[in-house]
């Protein structure tokens, strides 16, 4: 936090001592008020070049130059102060979110205790690939989801890191097998059980292009075959043939520094609600409850 504050304070301090100009609008009315014969031009490096054309006003223009330099710095200083205040407000907001999560987690906020999980049939988790490498954090997240009662989860990261680690998750949350391959009827394990789908960038746009290829080869290469007008059903069936059999996620929780879906399968995001949860290492149980609760309360029009 201290480093964050200093990063924003440093430009403000620098602007006091350094030469930084603000805007033409600041200088032009000042010059016209003093009725000086002069011109202002801007170099490529955005420094001001002030060229007095009247020799008599040269000393006055030098004073003016110093004044405008000071006033430009003052304006910039105040901008950085405002920026610092807003940044501080963001810090306060994060603190409040942490408090909110604590209150929700410990049951002080009653509205989030009874979730209508029937509305969240399929939950999607998008992870930044760097963060997905932190398996312990991912396992903890899945344990929280399991405790909430989520049964079907789609895990996505762009590079397929989660796909490579899927045995870890399947062992922890899927069916447990003993050496003679009997399924364990441990009630604790069955309560924790979740169904997983692991997807990556190859299941997104690349898969749609492959599905299109499948349709072209089936209907359009052979000159004698019937050539239908493609519909969504055609493409959906082609995607299923290629292994994309799972439904569209109802809710997508995005963990990472960037608020975008990182290339998650475009075909499956029609009416999916997306919530950015912040970096995975700062995940909070209460905020997951809040996101799911909010989703269950939203009226879905599904395009109507």
């Amino acid at each position, binding site marked *: 936090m201290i480093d964050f504050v200093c990063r924003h304070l440093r430009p403000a301090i620098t602007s006091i001592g350094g030469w930084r*100009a*603000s*805007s*033409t*609008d600041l200088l032009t009315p000042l010059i016209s008020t003093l009725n000086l014969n002069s011109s202002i031009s*801007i170099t490529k490096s*955005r420094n001001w070049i002030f060229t007095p054309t009247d020799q008599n006003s040269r000393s006055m223009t030098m004073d003016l130059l110093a004044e405008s330099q000071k006033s430009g710095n003052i304006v910039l200083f105040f*901008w950085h102060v405002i*920026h610092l205040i807003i940044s501080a407000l963001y810090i306060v907001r994060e603190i409040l979110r942490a408090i909110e999560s604590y209150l929700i987690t410990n049951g002080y906020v009653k509205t989030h205790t009874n979730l209508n999980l029937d509305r969240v049939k399929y939950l999607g988790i998008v992870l930044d690939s*760097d963060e997905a490498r932190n398996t312990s954090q991912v396992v903890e997240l899945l344990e929280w989801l399991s405790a909430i009662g989520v049964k079907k989860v789609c895990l996505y990261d*762009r590079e397929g890191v989660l796909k490579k680690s899927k045995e870890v998750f399947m062992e922890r949350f899927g069916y447990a097998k003993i050496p003679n391959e009997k399924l364990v009827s441990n009630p604790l394990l069955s309560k924790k059980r979740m169904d997983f789908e692991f997807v990556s*960038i190859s299941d*997104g*746009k*690349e898969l*749609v*292009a492959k599905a*299109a*290829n499948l*349709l*072209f*080869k089936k*209907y*359009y*290469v052979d000159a004698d075959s019937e*050539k239908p*007008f*493609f*519909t*969504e059903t055609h*493409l959906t069936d082609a995607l299923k043939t290629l292994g994309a059999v799972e439904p569209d996620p109802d809710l997508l929780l995005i963990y990472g*520094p*960037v*608020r*975008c*879906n*990182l*290339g*998650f399968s*475009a*075909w499956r*995001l*029609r*009416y*999916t*609600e*997306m*919530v*950015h949860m912040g970096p995975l290492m700062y995940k909070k149980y209460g905020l997951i409850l809040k996101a799911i609760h909010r989703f269950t309360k*939203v009226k879905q*029009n599904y*395009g109507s």
Partner: protein
Amino acid sequence: MDPSSLTSNKEGSQGYQALYDGLQADAMPKHVTLFLDGASRGQLKDIARICCDLKIKVLSVFTFSSGKDYQNLLMSKHEEIHDVATNIMKLDLEDLSRVSVIGKRTVIPDSLLEIIRDVEETTKKNKSLQIIEAIDYTGRGDIIQACMALAEKVEHGLIQPDDVDENVFQQELETKCSEFPNPDLMIRTDGKYSIDNFMLWQMAYAELYFVEKDDFGFNKTKFIEALDAYQKRSRRFGGK
């Protein structure tokens, strides 16, 4: 930051100078997608003006309404595209915006189609801002029509099925009318957190900015706030 380096229209932008302070010209999104509810529709002109000032190249607009049946929805869209088209032509900008319309034109009456073609033709040479208006457009529908366009090429032997990849697909989408087809920033103004089947393919790496609905509605100040929030986030487009 010198705001005058951002602006291209000195007269129109003076009122917005204070709003532009703090924005970085080199971190401006090239393409912004705006989900506008009916109440915020009136702000479109101001937002288009800001986009021109800040050298944002493309503004795509998706307007949704609530509770209307399909015919009424289509009629209201007709009025909206007519209003947007004529309002844009009356904007006091040095370079008028270029208007493009995407969506299924088969359901639009001929009289309105004529207006759309006229506006597109009249504004096609304008360079400062392209406004993409979506009428009866869906993301999945766009992907399907790209499939059909490629299927015809396969049928005529212009392309082999195995040559079709993401890049070839992208070039057949309706946003091929734009130099910057993929949104960098998506702003939704009605408090919902989904993209509602809009530009599904194109928004793979778009920053998603959802605005909570309030009594004041979405306005130019909130638009600038969205741009400021966009510039603060690090974007890697899926890379490292």
